[in-house]
């Protein structure tokens, strides 16, 4: 059960985080942006759990739980905003939202 080296767990979390970040930078569709944020949050949660596993304490998993709650809340509001976004701007392209420039 415990032969897995924790470093690899952290490396996995890092890779997932990084992939999420790339997605964030390149995709222009709002839904995909939200998804990428989810990936990054998930990677962060993974890191917490790995840390908890390292010390054998539950704090890691408790933190994961909070991350989860926060992610859920974030998605809910995010998607609601997506709907409004779609209504007002017609398209879900993130680059349209640039009134705040200058």
């Amino acid at each position, binding site marked *: 059960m415990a032969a897995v080296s924790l*470093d690899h767990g952290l490396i996995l979390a890092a890779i997932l985080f990084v992939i999420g970040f790339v997605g964030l930078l390149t995709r222009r569709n709002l839904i995909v942006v939200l998804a990428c944020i989810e990936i990054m949050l998930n990677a962060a949660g993974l890191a917490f759990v790995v840390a908890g596993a390292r010390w054998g304490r539950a704090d890691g998993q408790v933190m994961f*739980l909070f991350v989860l709650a926060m992610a859920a809340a974030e998605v809910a509001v995010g998607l609601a905003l997506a709907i*409004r976004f779609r209504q007002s701007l017609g398209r879900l392209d993130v680059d349209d939202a640039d009134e705040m420039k200058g």
Partner: protein
Amino acid sequence: MTALFYIAAAVAVLATVLVITRSNLVHALLYLVVSLFAVAVVFFTLGAPFVAALEVIVYAGAIMMLFVFAVMLLNVSADSPLRVPTSAWIGPLVLVAVLLAELIYGIGLSDHALRAVEVGPQQVGDALFGPYVLGVELASMLLLAALIGARHIASQPESPAIEDPRLSGEEPDAPADAEGAT
């Protein structure tokens, strides 16, 4: 068990890569679900069964469902795929490569503990309602706020833009594009 960890890790990474590269949105979401399941398996191999379960139930189950519903509601698939010229990928990739290198180097500095200790739901439960009881309350408030917020934002009066072209009987493709183009 370690083999399972590596397999699951590989699946997770692959799935995540596919999420951000698929042009079709629904495929992307589904790959995301796969990735979440893979991560759940990783949790399991790391000796955190409670969290693995949670991952499956809440993350894959609830949050992804929200996404899917949103996709359906927003009728997104009809939009023109918002492709970014491949040249635009180079910048972020370089940045991210540097970031990854730093993270891995940082991780390399840690004390390379080998043994992952099993942490069952019992301990998590004690911790949750022990020192972290305040955290739980706050989380619940957060969720409540998100709930009301999402409901309020999403329920604005219908605005013409969202009318589904097909209902109004015109040619489905032309107006969508025209509409899309504005």
